[in-house]
């Protein structure tokens, strides 16, 4: 690493770490969740990226070069198709094979687990997942030995190739551009895990009314696996950066009383256990979280970043001294507004959210489709933040 790049890297890390710890950095950090949007930006399809990892790396690198944000957003939503093809997955729709080549992957609501399966799940979730869910979710794993084992091995090898190529690129980007990934490691709080992968959204919404005790018990049974998944996917020794990514899905559909009963016990334990082991998390807070702010206010101070889809100004007042807030710009403005409108809104959001620190400027959603952001809008916002986002200005 050259001296200038080393200095740039140290500046960015100090800016981010200070901000996440709820302090005031030199200026407001900026980083957009540039997920599958990077394909259209660099003139390729999403289908090309999910099969050819060098194209994926090239697209991500172009965004790093052109925008030079304080961290890069790793492609967590750009799933390596060969891994899914090897095991014959049935749960997701992928660009090119099921959807338009330029469509982000989509996730139909499916329930491979039925409500009658709860006792088996609760008794031994790992066994239930391996014996019953994996063969249902991935058809190659339902085939007789040795085809199932070969399929699993092929999937493992394909995933290893993906991680090796991406890992090498991430290392090179630190050396070459002085930029680190914002996220490392991923998990799902227990109730979301149950909903996302096994019972489906519609299923879990019924279960909290028809089988409430079993949902509570299933979340408890699932909990150790969610903690292990977060730590295993992070890799290496615990560190406060990058952040463990926790996308949250069902909370805002639950009344606070139900959130407290079903979601909060294993969710708050996950965050506290990660914090006491030396990790920090980024929560993707989709939807309207205002009714649940009193819960977020109880999370460990300075250990959590909340990516707010909505109501970041209200969040600043209610929970801004507990969690670092990220977001502020709606994708409809980024995609359909003018650069002048975007800069005016950026100014307004910074005035409301930056004072006292603990604020990272970003979009309120990940950027998936071409119309989620015009490049010239992101460019104007980035320029404005770098020139005028200073705390001593």
């Amino acid at each position, binding site marked *: 690493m050259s001296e200038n790049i080393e200095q740039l890297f140290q500046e960015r890390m100090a800016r981010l770490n200070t901000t996440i710890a709820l302090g005031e950095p030199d200026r407001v950090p900026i980083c957009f969740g540039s997920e599958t949007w990077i394909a259209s930006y660099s003139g390729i399809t999403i289908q090309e990226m999910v099969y050819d990892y060098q194209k994926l790396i090239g697209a991500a690198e172009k965004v790093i070069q052109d925008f030079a944000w304080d961290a890069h957003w790793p492609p967590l939503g750009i799933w390596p198709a060969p891994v899914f093809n090897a095991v014959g997955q049935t749960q997701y729709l992928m660009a090119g094979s099921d959807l338009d080549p330029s469509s982000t992957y989509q996730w139909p609501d499916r329930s491979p687990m039925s409500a009658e399966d709860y006792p088996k799940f609760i008794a031994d979730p790992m066994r239930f997942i391996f014996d019953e869910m994996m063969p249902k979710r991935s058809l190659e794993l339902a085939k007789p030995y040795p085809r199932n084992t070969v399929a699993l091995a092929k999937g493992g090898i394909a995933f290893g190739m993906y991680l090796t190529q991406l890992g090498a690129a991430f290392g090179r980007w630190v050396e070459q551009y002085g930029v680190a990934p914002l996220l490392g490691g991923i998990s799902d709080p227990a109730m979301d895990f149950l909903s996302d992968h096994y019972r489906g*959204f519609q299923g879990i919404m019924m279960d909290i*009314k028809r089988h409430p005790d079993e949902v509570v018990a299933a979340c408890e049974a699932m909990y150790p696996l969610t903690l292990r998944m977060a730590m295993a996917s992070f890799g290496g020794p615990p560190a406060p950066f990058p952040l463990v990514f926790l996308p949250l899905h069902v909370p805002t559909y639950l009344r606070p009383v139900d959130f407290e009963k079903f979601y909060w016990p294993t969710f708050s334990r996950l965050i506290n256990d990660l914090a006491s082991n030396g990790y920090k998390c980024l929560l993707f807070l989709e939807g309207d979280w205002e*009714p649940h702010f009193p819960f977020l206010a109880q999370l460990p101070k300075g250990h959590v970043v909340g990516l707010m889809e909505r109501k970041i100004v209200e969040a600043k007042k209610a929970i801004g001294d507990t969690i670092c807030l990220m977001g502020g710009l709606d994708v409809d403005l980024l*995609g*359909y507004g003018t650069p002048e409108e975007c800069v005016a809104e950026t100014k307004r959001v910074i005035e409301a959210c930056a004072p006292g620190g603990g604020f990272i400027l970003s979009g309120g*959603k990940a950027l998936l489709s071409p*119309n*989620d952001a015009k490049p010239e809008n992101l460019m104007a916002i980035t320029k404005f933040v770098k020139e005028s986002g200073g705390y001593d200005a």
Partner: protein
Amino acid sequence: MTGETAASQLAEALAELDEPKVLQLVDQILSESPESASQAIAAIQSGMDQVGERFQSGEYFLAEMIFAAEVVKGVMPGLREALKAGSQKTIGKILLGTVKGDIHDIGKNLVAVIMTAAGFDVVDLGIDVRPNSFVEAIKEHQPNIVGLSGLLTLSIDPMKETVDAIKAAGLQDQVKVIIGGNPITPQIHEMVGADAWTNNAAEGVAICKKWVEVQ
């Protein structure tokens, strides 16, 4: 118990999300006199209205709306069958679909159930519906209202394409178009050019009811 008392209890039980009681009352009403199915359907409409009101006021969340809709979905076929085919009055016809490129349907399905409970004849075109398919379906079914649904931001441009296709086919005076889903904001609504927007199913039903009352 008279049919009327059972019907008013049915509305209350649905509003309170008491599924066993709803099922028991529906069975009771149908076994006492199949002709009172129309009263039961009216009670379900009233119960669902109350669920919608509690959702609007913030007492219920989406989980409660989805649960109530599922309960209604379970009992409606039996009630419909008890009524003589064709004798049921509807307040209007609505065509629903998730637009091209988007395969999400939880929101659309919820809207379909509560529109049905509110008395609409619902034609559901499913997911990933192309603009031209909406146009053809309007010509075939002659609805009062067309509802376009989408969850992802990639549904915004196809919503506009669909509205433009309806206008290009000269059908915009025949139907009202309402768009709904997570990515819709007032700005997006203006850009798409539909007659109304919402991302709240209960509010959507209220808008559609108002439209057919005026007609």
